[in-house]
């Protein structure tokens, strides 16, 4: 049991529900993240996790700044920012694709786990491996075709009208995000094969956060 689970356990036990807050539960402490990978791969994995977290947070902060500045500009100064919409498009793509692999890493993707949770552990484990393998395969397939899509866009050399940067700069995150998510699910399958416990992601063992579904 590592990282996320330690945190969750120390927070949950014997603390009455009324003094816990949901938002604190959502926070993931990246300095506590321990990679499930050995040696140099582990170092790379931790570094990637850090980068994902930084991209997520700065992406949201920049988007907030950009959108707020546009509103203030429009109402206080009577002038909109001409690139707000394009910058937000770039940021939402960045956030989405940095976030899907970050969510895969911490087992935070929304799933309907009611039936899964009701199964016996001897069935849950092979099912978890199946889920991880199929999900990884789908992610790698999308990686391949998004590389194709991005390179087509790059070869056309189109520029974003306001920002005047190549379109492919803002969509390059799609193949990267799909690939890293695929890697996470593939590793989850491996982790479940070699470890006796059932793992929802490389760093999250099942059983400590049974919300099953996260709602927004």
């Amino acid at each position, binding site marked *: 049991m590592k990282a996320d689970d330690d945190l969750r356990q120390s927070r949950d036990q014997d603390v*009455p*529900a*009324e003094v816990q*807050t*949901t*938002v*604190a539960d*959502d*926070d*993931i402490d990246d300095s506590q993240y321990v990679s499930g990978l050995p040696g140099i791969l582990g170092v790379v994995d931790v570094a990637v996790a850090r980068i994902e*977290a930084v991209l*997520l*947070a700065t*992406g*949201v*902060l920049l*988007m*907030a700044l950009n*959108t*707020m500045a*546009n*509103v203030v500009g429009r*109402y206080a100064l009577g002038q909109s920012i001409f690139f707000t*919409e394009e910058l*937000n*498009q770039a940021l*939402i*793509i960045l*956030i*989405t694709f*940095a*976030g*899907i692999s*970050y*969510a*895969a890493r911490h087992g935070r*993707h*929304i799933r*309907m786990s*009611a*039936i899964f949770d009701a199964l016996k552990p001897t069935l849950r484990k092979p*099912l978890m491996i199946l*889920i991880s393998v*199929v*999900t990884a395969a*789908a992610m790698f*397939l*999308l990686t391949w*075709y998004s590389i*194709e899509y991005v390179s*087509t866009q790059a070869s056309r050399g189109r520029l974003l009208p306001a920002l005047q940067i190549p379109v492919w700069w803002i*969509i390059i995150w*799609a193949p990267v995000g799909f690939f890293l998510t695929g890697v996470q699910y593939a590793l989850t399958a491996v982790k479940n094969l070699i470890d006796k416990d059932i793992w929802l992601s490389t760093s999250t063992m099942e059983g400590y956060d*049974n*919300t*099953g*579904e*996260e*709602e*927004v």
Partner: protein
Amino acid sequence: MSLMIFGTMIFLLLLGFPMMIPLIAGSLIGFVALFGGFGQLDTMVQQILGGIRPASLIAVPMFIFAADIMTRGQSANRLIDLVMAFVGHLKGGLAVSTATACTLFGAVSGSTQATVVAVGGPLRPRMLKAGYKDSFVLALIVNASDIAFLIPPSIGMIIYGVVSGTSISELFIAGIGPGLLILVMFSIYSYIYAHRHNVPTEPKSTWGERGEAVQRALWPLGFPVIIVGGIYGGIFSPTEAAAACVLYALILEMIMFREMTVKQLYATAKSTGLITAVVFILVGAGAAFSYVISFAQIPQEVLGAIGIDQMGQYGILFTISIAFFVGCMFVDPIVVILILVPIFAPVVNSAGLDPVLVGTIITLQVAIGSATPPFGCDIFTAIAVFKRPYAEVIRGTPPFIVMLLSVAVALIFFPQIALFLRDLAFAK
């Protein structure tokens, strides 16, 4: 083909795959079958990217961010104190306060899950101490939290608006009427319940205490002023209102109260980013799915098979209601909206139904379905938050579901419940 697509999707969903996979699998089957192989899959990627790009979707992360900044502080408790100061002393006052606090909190945060925790967390122990049965308390919290879905800001409404091309501003305003109607019904039921079970009342607050509670709750109440006032007054688009809420929350928590540090702001931004990504990959995959099924004319096929053309407007609205209600009993609301809205889109257009009314009905059904067994997702939130077994959480729900369904039926026959405020605000 439609049978294969939907069969695979339901199978994958029930097995517990991450919800993006059924959507991606459904679109994959569609693309491969339609275009005879893998040749057009870069179009699928294009659709995924196109799905997350609409400018109005930026309102989703902004509202999540604003609520996340605001609700880390004391706002939920302040709202609870405000409501308690005014209605706490009535018969069933604690229960009425719970429902009202859920509604008010829903005006700050669009999340039912956050509402269950922030309002249900502090109020459940007090209700149990006062003599309410836990099955009633749990059911009240779960179902009243669903009012948050209808009260703006509502993430579900934003996504419905983008998918169906409906005005999000109008949807927001239309959600208020049904939301308040549900609150009134729950309050009446709570009053009757307290009478029948002879639950003692709470001490009455003095006007001095009330004044203080109002003062303390003023800041979080700025949210509904910005959102509803801004949209009602035609000043803000939903995205602008969301940005104004972020600005407001930042000024309050970082400058005025100094409750939030830069480090916490960073952590809040990261958590917002994570939730956003998890939702947006679904929205993207949903867009690809929607593209391929409309290309293959699957909506017409499905709607034709259930004979929707002979149904008339009421029949169509009932069919839509049932489809969304049943869908949300099993799957996350956002996924249901992403899958079913494009299917019903052709008939909503051809029957000349008001898309804002349809959106409000759908949002209500989604809220009801999320609190309905077997797998309504709010039930599982309550299980996780309150650490009570499944059977206990659902035991008290039937009366609430009956009340909610009666509001749903009323909404179909008296659309003015939703459209009155909309028509007033947008001069229709």
